[in-house]
């Protein structure tokens, strides 16, 4: 790791002003990506501004049909939160299979979506549930927020404060774990809104990051059941391929994980 200056911000406003003062500042959430990258000397921020202790970024709120998770809430806190389990159990399940216990104690929802790793779990949940990303400046719809590999709509110095999820009628998430990293080799989040709309999002599959899967959405809209997907064919074009999975294998996983997510949906 290169030398860097560490700051612990106590409010979002303080974090913003610290960021502006640094020549090449970076926000630190749970540190599950930034710190390993810094240790490898692949990132060398002048200043690291820790958002983890900011009170206004902590916690979960359920209000009517909206579940709001503050940005610096850890996966563990999400996984064990009674409102999350009640309103959207698929999110509690997603966090329970995210990384390992050490990652879940440190990693945060805000950090995950700000990094937008193409194999991260949470982007699939946001996209499928039609979530809204709240920042210190604005609200951004999930479909506008994720803009390709490690790329988001966030501007320089903009801080995610919370994510709001409309509570769905049904939702489910299933993933095939990457054997080494335990990211999603491919994960699929399926959701049926209370108005009957169906959205399906896959992570870990596409070369351009989290993606909707219209063919599966159409099949499920007609018939919400795993067998409805039997005849759907997913193209391997544009899908990721590496030593742990060919594009054809990932195309298969999109379908199989979608079927299992529907079967598990509640």
């Amino acid at each position, binding site marked *: 790791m290169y*030398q860097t200056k560490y700051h612990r911000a106590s409010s979002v406003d303080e974090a913003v002003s610290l960021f502006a003062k640094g020549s090449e500042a970076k926000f630190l959430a749970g540190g599950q990506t930034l710190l390993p990258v810094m240790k490898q000397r692949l990132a060398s921020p002048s200043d690291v501004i820790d958002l983890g202790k900011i009170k206004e970024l902590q916690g979960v709120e359920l209000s009517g049909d909206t579940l709001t998770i503050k940005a610096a809430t850890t996966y563990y806190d999400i996984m064990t939160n009674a409102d999350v389990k009640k309103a959207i159990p698929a999110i509690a399940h997603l966090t329970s299979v995210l990384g390992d216990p050490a990652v879940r104690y440190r990693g945060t929802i805000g950090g995950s979506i700000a990094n937008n790793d193409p194999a991260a779990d949470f982007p699939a949940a946001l996209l499928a549930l039609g979530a809204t990303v709240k920042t210190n400046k604005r609200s951004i719809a999930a479909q506008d927020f994720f803009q390709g590999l490690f790329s988001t709509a966030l501007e320089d110095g903009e801080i995610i404060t919370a994510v709001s999820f409309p509570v769905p009628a049904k939702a489910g998430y299933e993933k095939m774990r990457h*054997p*080494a990293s335990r990211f999603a*080799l491919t994960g699929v989040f399926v959701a049926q809104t209370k108005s009957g709309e169906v959205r399906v999002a896959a992570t870990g599959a596409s070369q351009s990051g989290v993606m909707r899967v219209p063919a599966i959405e159409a099949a499920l809209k007609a018939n919400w059941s795993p067998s409805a997907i039997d005849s759907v064919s997913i193209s391997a074009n544009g899908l990721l391929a590496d*030593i*742990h999975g*060919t594009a054809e*294998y990932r195309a*298969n996983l999109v379908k199989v994980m979608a079927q299992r997510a529907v079967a598990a949906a509640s």
Partner: protein
Amino acid sequence: MGVEGIGARVVRKEDKRFITGKGRYVDDIKLLGMTHAHFVRSPHAHAKVKGIDSSAALKMPGVVAVLTGQQIVDDKVGNLICGWAITSKDGSPMKMGAWPAMAPETVRFVGQAVAVVIADSKNLARDAAEAVVVDYEELPAVADMQAAIKSGAPQLHPEASGNQVYDWVIGDEGATDAAFAKAANVVKLDVTNNRLAPNAMEPRAAIADYDAAEEHFTLYTTSQNPHVARLVLSAFYNIAPEHKLRVIAPDVGGGFGSKIFIYPEEMVALWASKKIGRPVKWTGDRTEAFLTDAHGRDHVTHAELAFDANNKITGLKVKTYANFGAYMSLFSSSVPTYLYATLLSGQYNIPAIHAEVIGVYTNTTPVDAYRGAGRPEASYLIERLMETAARQLKVDPAQLRRTNFITQFPHQTPVIMAYDTGDFNASLDAAMKAIDYAGFPARKAKAKSDGKLRGIGVSCYIEACGIAPSKAVGSLGAGVGLWESAEVRVNPVGTIEILTGSHSHGQGHETTFCQLVAERLGVPISQVSIVHGDTDKVQFGMGTYGSRSAAVGLTAILKAMEKMESKAKKIAAHALEASEADIVIENGEFKVTGTDKAIALPMVALAAYTAHNLPDGMEPGLKESAFYDPTNFTFPAGTYICELEVDPGTGKTSFVNFVAADDFGRLINPMIVEGQVHGGLVQGIGQALLEHAIYDASGQPVTASFMDYAMPRADDVPSFNLSHTTTLCPGNPLGIKGCGEAGAIGASAAVINAITDAIGKNNLEMPATPDRVWRTIHAA
């Protein structure tokens, strides 16, 4: 057996310090004035080093020196050696390319060091290393073995034309050809044994401390064999004569073979310490471990097995290509030859065997011994062949093995080994009973109705451990003897120190070796301590690898104990005015048999050291030593059976049951043996399902971190069902065979045999990743 004697499940003495974080590893040691080394490593798989500009680095804060490969060559530090000479079939010696500790002219794998920066802190050294400018001229590289042996391939070493290290043969080719000519059935199989990165928990590290006044070096290093390190550093690398070089291997966090070898980094640390006049520490990080720790396995093999009309094996033909990487590591030459092809007979009566092994250089990390070293490759091959044969001949795979088991001992195989004892039917029976082999078809049918593909796989392994005797291995080209030494020191107050030339880096010697003393003397193990890992304390030893420490090392301790006990009995007899022949040792006392006369061990010890009342002519003191050279290898063997399910939708494997029935001869501490088997099985399963060190075509490593290289985790493996059948090893007085490698040797074939049984397709390479299994299921 006493409560702490042989056979007792004694809790490990060493675990108090390991579990509470009080272990003392090389990196925990800090010396006054210590500097830190960071190596400048090649990013290219093959390149000329045209120049190194250190001027900017030398101006950076805290930098003490920047030293290069040319300087180490100019100072006449020797090239790295290979300690086992192999002769090709045409009578020519193996073709060894020069390997300087840092490359002065040419780099041949990614990660090879070209220079080292020495600075006041680790971070300052690393900062300055980034400022060292190396002018490389990239050369064409070849990482794939089959590509490397083709004409026109990039050539690594002028000494080895065609990138061939050797073309070695074993067995009777004529007799084998004759067997195939008469065969009723021939079974053919192509097998790849995937390259593995060893990944000991503790990365390698070294601290070198040169004392200019005494012209003496001390090296703290992560070694499985500190005396061999001192021997090689003295005799071949011109670092210092042996009496001016102390090597200390303190607590070492796992080795699996990778810490047998003497690596460039400790050579450079020693040389640099003298050059700069301060201690030099180097601690590798995980990336350096992936790039520079000797890898394991990496064979490509074609094999054929001939059967007569009664399904009896009549012949075996094997042709193996073994990847050596860019250089010949210390014992690399012996692994695919004498540690591999000599085990190709497996547990079977095979009248004729012929094997050819071609060693190949590639632009990859050097390959050497890794847990099992050659024997996993042999066991995997023969057990995959047996399973393939059973499928082709349409016979039950367990029965085919039984039909061909060796049942008479001793048994001379056609490939050097003379198996001393064993009962292969007993371990097969035990494993089949434990897994309810007979009930499998019903379970498979039930799984099918649940949408799962269930399979069962058998692996009957045999290995050769405690590599020996010295005279025999010497005649086969080994550069060292393979005996072990021990010394028993009884202190004046009766406490006991056992000095051993073996080295514990996770094996539990501090407990098991004490148990032998407890067994013989009836003293608690708290009164005994084990001393190892320091060339100033222990006179000489060969270290720990190849499951040798109990069979060879503990036998040496037994020999020394017998000498000590003999003298102690004389002292006791003299004190008790009894005949020496009437003295027995019980519960820490020397007793006159049949009487209540006794003298406690501390009193005997005190008498030995006060020397006030010793038998006439007896020397004072109570200390004895022994060297033990075995008469043969030992032959642990057993059966592993694995039952698993494959998810046809994802290709993912889930274990249902894994049973192991091992014959290790006598067990000293069954709990520690079980731990060894668990660890070995996990490594074997890791090879079968997860692990693979991969290079792209240009020689860039693709799996140089745990984000890409999949190590087995607890939830990847089942709870194991272990049992033991026992035939005592006749080759050593304790009847021990060794248990350190069996799991890693036998497990992978059981897993692949089970998966291929489940999916109904025989050809499947390791690692059987979900992707690969799914593609195999759905292949046309």
